[in-house]
Every structure is written in structure tokens, then in C-alpha cells.
């Protein structure tokens, strides 16, 4: 037994990983598609793997290779990364009371591994009524499972992409459009959300000729502003 004094820690890690299983299955196809599309989009195979290891943010990675293939400039990709990932600040603000007692050597890796999926799983663990002092080991278990899964799926996708020549002519980029559509449609609930989508669509289509894909930034901004304004007009619900 490597840790005879801390059986609880090991079981927290294991249960954290196990509870993340549905999330692993959900993320796997996206990791594979990302790896497959990254190289035709302009990343090197090594760059695709490095992005999954270092950035570790699915939607931002997808959007980045999409922008890269469309000829976007570095500032636009970085700005979009910022906007798209800003939701993570919300997650860390929510989890802060639970990690505030931990040392920075815990907080740094836990922050690095904070994804939508791990947040969803870990938040439930922290909300559980038991007073286990090892709930951050559960967080670690979920994070490591997601991280390993994401890297392996990216690797699989890169290898798959290399074995299919002229992949870019297959129309597999449609997988990206389909993924985004499948994510957006269920979110379109209520007038403010619909208005945000319509405003973003209108600006994106009108401003699509702007250089460096600046139209995307304008469209996102327009969508957010219209959404907030419509919500404001409707008053508190």
C-alpha cells in the first residue's frame, strides 16, 4: 500500500475520475475531431498536441483552429480565446471558498485543470453534506481523468488525420459546424438569448469581409450587448 495513512485520498481521486466518466465519453469525440482537423487547419502535429497539453480548453481550441484556417491574425485569436474562456473565471469564483484553504501548489494545478466538465462534477462533490477534508483530491481525480482523456483523444485524431490523405477535401470541417450548431440550439431559450444569436448572426454575415476575422469579435460583442439590453428591457423575471 503506497499510502496506508490516507486511504480516503486515494478513494476520492478514484471516485472523482469515475464520476467524470460520462464527461470523458462526451469529450472524446471532440478531442478526436480536434486532432483530426488541427493539422489541415494549419497547426503542426506537435502544435496540436501542445495545444491540448498546455491550453486544455476544448471550445477555445476548436475556435482557434477554425480562425487559423480562415486566416485570422494572432490578436483576434487571442482576443477570442479570452472572450470564450472568460466563463472559467466564473467557475473559479464559485469554487474559491472551497480551495481558499489550500496552498498555492494545489491551487495552481487545480486552476490549470478547471474545465466545464470538471467544474460540473466537482461542484456537486463540494455541495455534498459530508465534511471530508479531502474533496480537493476528488477534484484532482476528475481533472487528471479529463486531461489524460483529452490528450489521448487529440493524439488519436492527429494519427487518424495523417492516415487519411487530403482530409481537408472531405468536408470534415462540417463536423465543426455541426458541433457548434448542436451546442447552440438548446441554449436558444427566451427572447434575450434569441436576440443575442440573431444580432451575432447579422453582424457576422455583414462584417465577414473585415480583415483578420475582426467581424467575429464585433459579432460576439453585438450579441452580448443585445442580449443584456433585451434582458434589461424585460425587467427582473
Amino acid at each position, binding site marked *: 500500500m503506497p499510502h496506508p495513512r490516507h486511504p480516503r485520498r486515494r478513494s476520492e481521486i478514484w471516485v472523482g475520475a469515475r464520476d467524470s466518466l460520462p464527461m470523458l465519453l462526451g469529450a472524446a469525440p471532440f478531442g478526436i475531431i480536434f486532432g483530426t482537423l488541427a493539422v489541415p487547419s494549419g497547426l503542426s502535429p506537435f502544435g496540436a498536441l501542445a495545444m491540448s497539453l498546455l491550453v486544455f480548453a476544448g471550445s477555445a481550441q476548436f475556435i482557434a483552429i477554425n480562425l487559423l484556417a480562415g486566416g485570422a491574425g494572432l490578436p483576434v485569436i487571442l482576443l477570442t480565446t479570452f472572450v470564450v474562456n472568460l466563463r472559467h473565471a466564473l467557475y473559479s469564483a464559485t469554487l474559491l471558498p472551497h480551495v481558499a484553504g489550500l496552498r498555492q501548489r494545489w491551487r495552481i494545478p487545480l486552476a490549470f485543470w478547471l474545465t466545464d466538465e470538471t467544474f460540473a462534477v466537482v461542484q456537486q462533490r463540494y455541495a455534498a453534506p459530508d465534511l471530508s477534508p479531502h474533496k480537493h483530491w476528488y477534484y484532482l481525480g476528475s481533472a487528471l481523468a479529463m486531461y489524460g482523456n483529452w490528450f489521448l483523444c487529440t493524439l488519436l485524431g492527429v494519427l487518424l488525420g495523417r492516415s487519411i490523405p487530403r482530409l481537408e477535401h472531405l468536408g470534415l470541417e462540417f463536423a465543426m459546424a455541426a458541433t457548434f450548431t448542436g451546442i447552440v*440550439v438548446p441554449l436558444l431559450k427566451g427572447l434575450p438569448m434569441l436576440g443575442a444569436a440573431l444580432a451575432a448572426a447579422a453582424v457576422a454575415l455583414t462584417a465577414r469581409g473585415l480583415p483578420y476575422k475582426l467581424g467575429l469579435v464585433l459579432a460576439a460583442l453585438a450579441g452580448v450587448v443585445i442580449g443584456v439590453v433585451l434582458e434589461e428591457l424585460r425587467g427582473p423575471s
Partner: protein
Amino acid sequence: MSGHELALILGMTAITFLIRYAFFALGDRLAFPPLAHRALRFVPVAVLTAIIMPMVLLPDGAHWQISWHNPWLLGAGVTGVIAWRFHHLLASITGGMLVFFLFRWIAG
């Protein structure tokens, strides 16, 4: 790996990490304004819609193709309907891709 690629990956790494770490690092000295909280909820819909629409309506990047002979529009439409009706992401993507590839195969 080119310098541009390195800058892209390191830049994205730094931005993503700082966003995730800011609250963990600074603790209660950082406050999230309620307006930002509300605005963030619209970000995924706004960004993703802005990416999808030009891809689907102008697949070649230059010409509008608003017709059922456009496999991108057809496939995305099927994905959207399945996602809206069943709230199942993987099923909606699979359905849309099936229609997309089937259509391209039939149309030659």
C-alpha cells in the same frame, strides 16, 4: 513548430490559465461585477452563432447559398432540429453529418 505557432499556443496558454487562476490566486480581493456575470451567459451563443452562420450560408466563403442544395445548410438544419427536439448533442452531430455526407455522395 514555427514562431507564429509557438506565439499562438503560448499566448492561448497564458490567457486561459490566467483566467482560470485569477480568483484562486487573489481570493476575495477580486470581485465579479453582476453585469459581467450576466453578459457572460450570452458569450457562447454569440460567438458560436457568429462562427456558424458564415460557414453554413456561404460555404465557399464568397457566395450566398440559401437553398436545400447546400449540404452545409441542410446538415446544420438537421443537426439543429435534432438538438432542439431531443437535446442530445452527439445524436444531433451524427445526424447532421450523416445527412451532409449522404447528400454530397448522392450529388457526386
